[in-house]
């Protein structure tokens, strides 16, 4: 927990935060509406004697207090997908509409990719990019099991994403859920902080800036970009937004989030950020008894 001490100045009720980080997190599953309805998933879970609890802000999410998703009928049929509560947030903030073209910039292993496809009722197109072939294999497996027919997978560094394979067309929306230091996953992976170093945080921040900048560039005027991480480090969150505000014409906008959260911070150590980064949301584990998360909504101005 030691690396988290640096956040004492920015987190209200820091002791409750640390206590929450020390508690394990139960499994959660998202209903895959490409293949099943919420009602049929409830029935199938009950038939399999799997206890499930609803999540008040999202009717397609269930917490499984005793089981892990995997070896049961609804999983085998691709009706459910193991996905943590906070990980469901960015696709709902992006709010894609049926028939749109999207870019998922860091897509593997595909939880959010398939959620985007489902939100569009498996119409339109989701171009799903990742730079790691092993993780692309997991992405492919998940899109197949969940029955998505609108996902195209590309192997490239998101910073240099090419529009050529698709005839040069830009996107209506982009999801930028970047690789990060993953501090917010501590409840799921208790050893996640063991290899924590400030130089890793600073290094990965450069990659995050490059990917978000590319996403803004390939999104059509009037389009939306969502930036998210599962970490608390301002270097990977507000600092990345501040950089992209300076480099591109995008704006950060406010949005409704039906979960307790804190605003993005505008000062960190000796740096200050653009005041609009306060419209980003920080979700701490003690807020809603979830993992930690960061999510911002950006708009590319119409011409």
């Amino acid at each position, binding site marked *: 927990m030691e690396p988290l001490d640096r956040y004492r100045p920015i987190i209200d009720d820091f002791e409750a935060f640390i206590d929450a980080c020390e508690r394990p997190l139960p499994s959660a599953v998202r209903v895959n509406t490409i293949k099943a309805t919420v009602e049929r998933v409830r029935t*199938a879970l009950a038939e399999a004697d799997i206890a499930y609890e609803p999540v008040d802000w999202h009717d397609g999410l269930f917490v499984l207090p005793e089981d892990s998703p995997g070896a049961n009928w609804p999983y085998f*049929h691709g009706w459910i997908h193991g996905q943590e509560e906070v990980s469901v947030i960015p696709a709902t903030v992006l709010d894609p509409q049926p028939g749109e073209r999207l870019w998922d910039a860091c897509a593997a292993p595909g939880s959010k990719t398939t959620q985007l496809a489902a939100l569009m009722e498996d119409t339109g197109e989701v171009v799903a990019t990742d730079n790691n072939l092993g993780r692309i294999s997991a992405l492919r497996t998940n899109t197949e099991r969940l029955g*998505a*027919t609108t996902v*195209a997978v590309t192997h490239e560094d998101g910073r240099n994403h090419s529009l050529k394979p698709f005839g040069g067309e830009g996107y209506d929306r982009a999801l930028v859920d970047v690789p990060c230091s993953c501090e917010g996953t501590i409840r799921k992976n208790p050893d996640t902080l063991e290899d924590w170093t400030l130089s890793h945080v600073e290094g990965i921040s450069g990659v995050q800036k490059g990917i978000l900048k590319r996403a803004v560039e390939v999104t059509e005027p009037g389009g939306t970009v969502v930036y998210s991480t599962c970490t608390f480090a301002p270097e990977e969150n507000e600092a990345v937004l501040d950089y992209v505000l300076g480099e591109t014409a995008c704006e950060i906008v406010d949005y409704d989030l039906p979960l307790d959260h804190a605003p993005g911070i505008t000062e960190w150590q000796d740096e200050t950020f653009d005041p609009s980064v306060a419209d980003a949301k920080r979700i701490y584990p003690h807020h809603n008894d979830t993992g930690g998360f960061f999510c911002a909504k950006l708009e590319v101005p119409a011409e």
Partner: protein
Amino acid sequence: MSDQSTEFTRLPETDEEREDPERATREEVLDFWTERFGVPPETFEGYTFWERGAGKLWLYQGTPPSPVDIEGLGMTFLRTRQEHWKPTLEAVQRFGEHASQNVIHLDEDAARAFVAGEDQELDWDGDWGYLVVTHDLAGEAEPVGVGLYVYGELRSQVPKGRRREV
């Protein structure tokens, strides 16, 4: 059966448009689903079919320029360039509800054995060959995968990585 190439080539519509004589046409694919499983051709309206490597067909909804060199395009769908074409488990789970023939319904125990990858002796009056396998889930018959029926035996075709003890 080489999967070395990551290039996807869109299937020609009909025989007249076909340059590679071994490549399936869209028309042949639709005929296959109708003749073997009674799946009406309208089921696949709006979908495009692509070949990657030798014989492996993918189903997608978009229309990128062909050929397209990427890692995935929708879902794997049908194995062609062999005597008996073979649908994938994922295609059957997604489209098998439209099948009206060559569908075998299993009870709970047989369905569990099937998804664990076991072959089993079963009575079946219909054609030998690839069948759509269904079982009851949440009050309805749900397609679960592909079986090969030969010599009085239903051979599970569930791929190794997909098998589960449910």
